[in-house]
């Protein structure tokens, strides 16, 4: 059942997502042209109008990336809101589908859309850089430099640790994306419960408050913890360094997993018991 629900969620999101992707591609191309003009202006003087155009096109292209990312996330949030918290929710919760399936589908949709958006944005950024600098990017020297850099990094930490770190970082990113979606869902659920009218405003207010509080707590924590942690890491012998770093990342993964599971439990309970759409 999960596959079907996921299929419809993704279909609904990607119906409009491709508009943002094409717009981002167009702006990235424009930005690339702007960079090319900017490069040319270093060698010869160009009319001021052309200089203004090149500057503006670069700025608009960069804005385009930000807007595209935000647009993708907003599409997922709108889909979730409509599906769970609006009139459409009456239909959703009468379907022969478990609440957990619905919730997992939304989380998977968010994760897939985020990954696809990130890959698309990176691809567009690459296109933007290729237009003015294709000779440098595709030169033999660049490829050799990249190979040497990767080889040096791998040699320093060893192949097993390198693979382990890559896996850990991917897991951390996955958990972070999941957690951010769960927080949004929780804010929407609690907002829908506490406000009969203005549910969206209530959800926004809760999300804003949560973000501020969590950022402050993390900031205070990092200010105190980071210097001591760095000092301890400096004192570790080379033989133990990789193990300790791998373990620290594992501790972080376990912590994020715990928070994600707690958030999932809270959201599941709200969907299951408390959400009253009447």
């Amino acid at each position, binding site marked *: 059942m999960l596959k079907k629900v996921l299929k419809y969620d993704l279909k609904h999101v990607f119906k409009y997502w491709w508009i943002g992707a094409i717009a981002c591609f167009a702006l990235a191309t424009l930005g690339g042209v702007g960079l090319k003009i900017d490069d040319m202006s270093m060698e010869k003087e160009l009319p001021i109008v052309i200089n203004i155009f090149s500057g503006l096109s670069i700025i608009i292209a960069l804005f385009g990336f930000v807007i595209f990312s935000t647009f993708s996330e907003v599409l997922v949030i709108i889909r979730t809101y409509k599906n769970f918290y609006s009139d459409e929710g009456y239909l959703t919760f009468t379907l022969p589908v478990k609440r957990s399936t619905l919730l997992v589908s939304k989380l998977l949709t968010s994760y897939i859309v985020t990954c696809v958006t990130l890959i698309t944005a990176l691809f567009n950024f690459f296109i933007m850089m290729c237009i003015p600098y294709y000779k440098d990017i595709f030169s033999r020297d660049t490829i050799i430099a990249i190979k040497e850099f990767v080889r040096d990094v791998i040699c320093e930490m060893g192949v097993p640790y390198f693979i382990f770190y890559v896996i850990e970082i991917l897991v951390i990113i996955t958990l972070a994306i999941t957690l951010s979606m769960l927080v949004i869902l929780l804010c929407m659920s609690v907002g829908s419960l506490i406000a009969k009218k203005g549910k969206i405003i209530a959800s926004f207010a809760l999300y804003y408050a949560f973000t501020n509080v969590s950022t402050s707590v993390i900031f205070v924590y990092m200010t105190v913890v980071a210097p*001591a*942690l760095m*000092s301890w890491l400096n004192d570790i012998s080379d033989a133990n360094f990789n193990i300790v770093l791998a373990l620290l990342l594992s501790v972080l993964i376990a*912590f994020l997993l*715990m928070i994600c599971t707690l958030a999932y439990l809270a959201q599941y309970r709200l969907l299951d018991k408390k959400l009253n759409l009447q």
Partner: protein
Amino acid sequence: MKNKLLVLLTVVVLLFSLTLPVFATELKMVTFSDDFKTLIFNDETYSRINSNNKIYHFGSIYDYEFNIGEYEEGFYYEYSDSYTDIEVEEKFEEKFFCDLTEEQKNSVIDIDIVDLHNNQILFDVSIYYKDGSVLQVNYMRDDYIAKYNELLKSNDNTKMYLDLLFETEEDVLIFEKGDLNLGDKEKIDVNDISDFFDIVSYSDDETLNIYGGMLIIVDSDYYFVDINSPKYAKEEYFDLYSYSYVEAYKINNEELCEKFEEDIDDFYNDSFNYIYDDELLEGLTKILLTIVFLVLPLALFVLFLILWIKSKEKKYKKIYFVLDVIAVIQVILFFVTNHFMFK
């Protein structure tokens, strides 16, 4: 109504025109010799100096309002072919105007000049050539070069102070090099150094500051490293940790050492309310990390174990079980990480 608007407009225009003198600029002419070895400004000649990284760029000791968090480099301009394309820093009123010969214009694309001490004694000049190379040099006014060389040599009467970014001039502890009462030269292993600070020497008329030395702390003893001695003078920038050993002289003036200790403590616990205490910080960190990665998971383990036992719904039992497993894993990881980190 029309008249009132007219009066208002007149007042606004008058007020605006009164502010115009604030933005008024005074163009100053700068020229260079053909080989860029000398610079002429205000009928004064400036010559290139060596060891330009020894110059202390943070203004005079009484300019501390520029030092704390807002380092101001002075004002600078940018030269271009048309002579009209000049950029000015907002806060400063003066700007330079560069007059190059035809031959210089053929090879140079741009020049940046910064008045390092805002007193037209020392200029930091970057010359950008058309072939892509950049020449960065300092030009000092000829009448100050002798003073600069004397400062580099230093003597017992050379005035110095510890670079601790004091907020007011009253806080600055000024001493003479002779006051340090230096002992014999010793070889100090850099790994034994617990802390170090720059010492700044300045000229009698307070127009020139240079890095005059370094104060290093080994256990509770204070040592002076003469960074302008022949051994280190060739280095453009003295980097303590690029050596395994440094030659230093023990500071035998105990009273001065006590004052250094006081000032250094104040520096670490200064008006920014930045608490920097190794032991306190480490203790706090251990407590915070233990709470988040040990106490919290243990508490959650107990809580969800109780809920797992009491719960009758299978779907919730599954989630409580998963939470318990994660909590146990976290506790195990905490102890394992602790073991390897403090081995």
